[in-house]
Every structure is written in structure tokens, then in C-alpha cells.
């Protein structure tokens, strides 16, 4: 790459890089920045067509969204659903991921393939029958119904991610612990889990965000106990514009904060979940 040692060529290269970086940053960041501005802008400024950048800011939209349109209830539901999804996919996914990462057994490839295959299955095909099943189980329109459906969506991905994270922790440590008399279960909880903790925490956040963002199943499965995206989908287009922007901002902000915390694992995690 650096075979050209002519300074001018290098300078042009640098300038092109800076220019491209500029375009990329503007393209990816501007929608986020603009909705943040709009979320706080006063409606008066928004409806003035000459005013590109608003100068008056207010929290009134947040108030009317939270209390007038009951978004606080939807936010609470979303947190509960995403939390439950996270918990369920951990309880079910951790042993399964451990089995895939530490054992060689007949049918292992089939199970891996099964996890991959379920990712290719569209959620739309599951939503309708799940509603019928949940109605029979008596959990339709509850946070349990939505969490159970979200876990079905997240679990195959989480199993594969866990398997890859646990494979990253060397078996040697576990073996050493077992030689010193720890049982496999103890070795797992005292040695492997602490070593895999950053990755596991990132996966937990990943599961949370997947559930927090999911709208299709959540809308179909609930009427009164709607998650935030479902609530927005049902009510947003009938509300004034400035409330839509505030709603969009409220949805986006926590997800972006979460992602900031897991940024080191971004490429690995989405790489696995999308492969």
C-alpha cells in the first residue's frame, strides 16, 4: 500500500480519506442528530417553514407523550418484555451453547444447522399461530406472551453466540480446575463464567435490544399491554408530527446507549447473528 513514497500522492490520499469519512459520518449520523433536535424543538418552530434549525426547545412533547398518550406504560411493558426475554434466553441458551462449545456428540451439526435454519424463518409465519396458542394458554395480551415469542426469535441466535463466546474461553482452565478437584459445574461457574463475562454481558444486551426493537410480533400479540414500538405503530401516525419525532427519539436513545456499551463486540455478535 505504502510503496508510493511521493508526499503529494500521500496527501491526496489523506484528503480523499477525510472526504469519504466526512460523507459517511454525515450520512449515518444526520438522521439521528436531526431527530434529537426535532424531539426537543418547540412545535411553533417546527411549523415555521423558514426555520431550518429550531431555536426554542421544550419538554412538553415528552410530557404529553408520557402522560397524555400513556407512553410510560408502554415503556415499562417494553422493559419487562425485553428483560424477561433476556432472562429466558439466558437460562435456555447457556447450557445449550455450552453443549455446542465443549462436547463432540452425534447430532451436534444438526442442532447447529437447526439454529441457523430458524433464523431464516420469517417471524410473520409464527405470529398468527402464536396468538391462537397464547389465547388457549391464557397468556394472550400479556407481557408473558410477547416475551415467550421474542425468546423464540432470540434463542437460536443466542445459542450460537454463546457457543462462540464459550469456545473463546480455553478448555485448559476448566480442566485445570477439575484436576484440582472442582466438579464440572463448579468449574463452569467459578472459572468459565467469570472469564466469559464481558461477552455474556454483551449478549444479554444484544438480546434485550432485539426484543426492545421488535415490532411485528409485539403488535399482533397485544391489544392493551403493548410494547413501545407496537404502541407507536398503532398511535403514531394519528398524532401530530412533533410527537412522532419525540417518540422516535425515545425508542432510539436507549438502544444506542446499549450499543455504545457493547461496541467492542459489535462486529463479532452481528457477524454471528447474521451469518
Amino acid at each position, binding site marked *: 500500500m505504502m510503496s508510493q513514497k511521493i508526499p503529494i500522492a500521500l496527501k491526496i490520499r489523506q484528503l480523499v480519506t477525510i472526504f469519504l469519512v466526512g460523507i459517511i459520518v454525515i450520512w449515518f449520523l444526520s438522521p439521528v442528530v436531526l431527530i434529537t433536535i426535532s424531539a426537543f424543538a418547540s412545535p411553533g418552530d417546527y411549523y415555521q417553514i423558514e426555520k431550518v434549525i429550531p431555536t426554542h426547545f421544550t419538554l412538553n412533547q415528552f410530557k404529553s407523550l408520557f402522560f397524555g398518550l400513556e407512553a410510560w406504560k408502554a415503556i415499562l411493558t417494553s422493559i419487562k418484555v425485553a428483560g424477561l426475554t433476556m432472562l429466558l434466553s439466558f437460562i435456555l441458551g447457556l447450557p445449550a451453547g455450552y453443549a455446542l462449545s465443549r462436547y463432540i456428540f452425534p447430532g451436534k451439526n444438526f442442532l447447529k444447522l437447526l439454529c441457523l435454519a430458524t433464523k431464516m424463518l*420469517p417471524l410473520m409465519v409464527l405470529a398468527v399461530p402464536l396468538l391462537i396458542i397464547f389465547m388457549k394458554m391464557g397468556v394472550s395480551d400479556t407481557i408473558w406472551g410477547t416475551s415467550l415469542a421474542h425468546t423464540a426469535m432470540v434463542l437460536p441466535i443466542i445459542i450460537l453466540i454463546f457457543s462462540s463466546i464459550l469456545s473463546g474461553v480455553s478448555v485448559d482452565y476448566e480442566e485445570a480446575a477439575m484436576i484440582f478437584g472442582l466438579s464440572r459445574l463448579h468449574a463452569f461457574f467459578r472459572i468459565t463464567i467469570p472469564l466469559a463475562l464481558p461477552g455474556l454481558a454483551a449478549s444479554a444486551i444484544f438480546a434485550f435490544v432485539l426484543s426492545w426493537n421488535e415490532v411485528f410480533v409485539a403488535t399482533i400479540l397485544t391489544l392493551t399491554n403493548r410494547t413501545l414500538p407496537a404502541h407507536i405503530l398503532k398511535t403514531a401516525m394519528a398524532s401530530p408530527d412533533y410527537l412522532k419525532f419525540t417518540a422516535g427519539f425515545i425508542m432510539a436513545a436507549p438502544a444506542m446507549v446499549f450499543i455504545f456499551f457493547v461496541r467492542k463486540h*459489535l462486529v463479532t455478535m452481528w457477524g454471528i447473528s447474521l451469518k
Partner: protein
Amino acid sequence: MISFNQGEKKWIPYLLFLPALIYLAGFIGYPLVKTLQLAFISEKGKVGMENFITLTRDSTFWKALKNTLYLLMVIVPLQVILAFLLALFVNGRFKGYMTVLYIICIPLALSDVSAALMSYNIFTSHGFLNKLLIKFGFIDAPIYFFGLGLSSRAFWVIVLTELWRATPLVFVILLASLQVISKDYFEAADVFGFSSWQKFFHITLPLTMPSLQSALLIRTLFAFQIFGVVWLLSGRDIPILAGEVYYQQAELSNFRLAATYGFIIAFICILISWVYLTFLKTKHSEL
């Protein structure tokens, strides 16, 4: 790993996987069977294609299929090309490339609902685009992108939104595969005096081909499931397959037709996966 397994019972891995397997059977397997029941049994209890016949007689079905395919054909190629260029650029590892990487990944964290609202914020009649154009005197009155009879404009806004929202998905897959290409290949190529183009076509492209193919597959499958962005920006003015599942179920409470639509989406997805996997021979299970 083999010594590790000695003296342990063979059923342990199965026992560990069992709870997850039971869960997936109950909440994915069983619903799938239920979908078949709903789609292939008519209201009067007759087994057959009756629901499919009702569906194909409705012109909305054909519109939805057409729109979904249109969106797919416009979005997927653009997305893969853009993502590949982005991945090649970021993989150049210039100073501060990690920051650029995070910024590109921001849309990954967002739902289709908030992405749709973000683009509504830009393209609506009082949005930033119209205000800017008026400010600089390019236009006198706002251009309307949404509303009755404007679905062809809304279509392009949807395309742009999807390009913004989902290009990073492809980007991440491609970047991951670029990152593992050994530097040795390029050094060897330098020794033999390869040009940058030759390096790209003889090293980078062949080595990223499997990822490129799986990115293409994933994006195609996702494109059949596109819902939130279209539904929020155009409602049913641009009917799409997933939107019809929602409409039949949530608005009309027609379980059978909703399930039939769902079955059709799933069927197309499975068919596409099968075609991709047989003809392109992507090594998918290499995790």
C-alpha cells in the same frame, strides 16, 4: 477436548441442549404446524387450497407481491455494493477507523419504527429537506412525499430509509470476513508486482465470496419481511406481503388469510434459501 470427555456420560450434552430444543419445538415447531392447519383448511373445514384461491383472487395480493419484489430488487443490490465499498474502506484501517465503524453501526441498534420516524422527520412537508430547499431558494413550496397518490415518491423514501437502516447489517458481515484475510497474501502479491485491481479481483473478492453470498441471502430473506418502515411511511398505499399479514390479522381478524400470507412468505424464504444453498454452495455452518 477428547480427554476432557472421558469418563463422562454420553447423554450430558443432549441433556444440556434439551430445554432449548423443547422450547424451540413448542414455540417455533408447533406454531409452524398450526400455520399449515390454518392455511390449508378452509373456514368450512375442508382441506385444500381454498384460502390460496381466495387470496390470489384479491388484487391486493398481487400488488403486495409485486411491491415486495420491487423493493427487494432495488434495495438488495444497492445495499450489498454500498456495504462492500464501506467495508473495503473501513478495512483500510486509517487513523480513527474504529470511530467510523461505530458510527456506521448506529443503525444496527435501531428498530425499523424509529428509522421510519427519522426519515419522516427529514422528508415530511415541514421536514429538514423541504426547509433547507426553501431556505436556499430551490423551491417555493414544500414537496410532498407522503400521502394519497404519492406512493411512488414514498417508495423512494422507503428505499433510502432501508439503505440507511440495513446497509450496516451487510457491512458487518463483509467487514468480519475482510478482517480475517491474512496480510501474507497481499505481501506475496506485492512481491509479484500485482496492481491494486489485481489484488482485489484475485485475493479480496474470492476470499470474501462466501460472506458476500450469505449476506446476499440474509438480505433477500429480510427484504421479504420488510414491514415497519413501509407501514409507517405509506400505510397500505404500498401494500407489501408482511403488511398484509398484519392487516388481515390485526384489522380484519382473519386468522386464516393472515396465516396463508405468512405461509407464502415463509415458503418463498425457504425456497430462496434452498436455491442459494444448493447453487452457490455457501459454507454456512462454519461458525
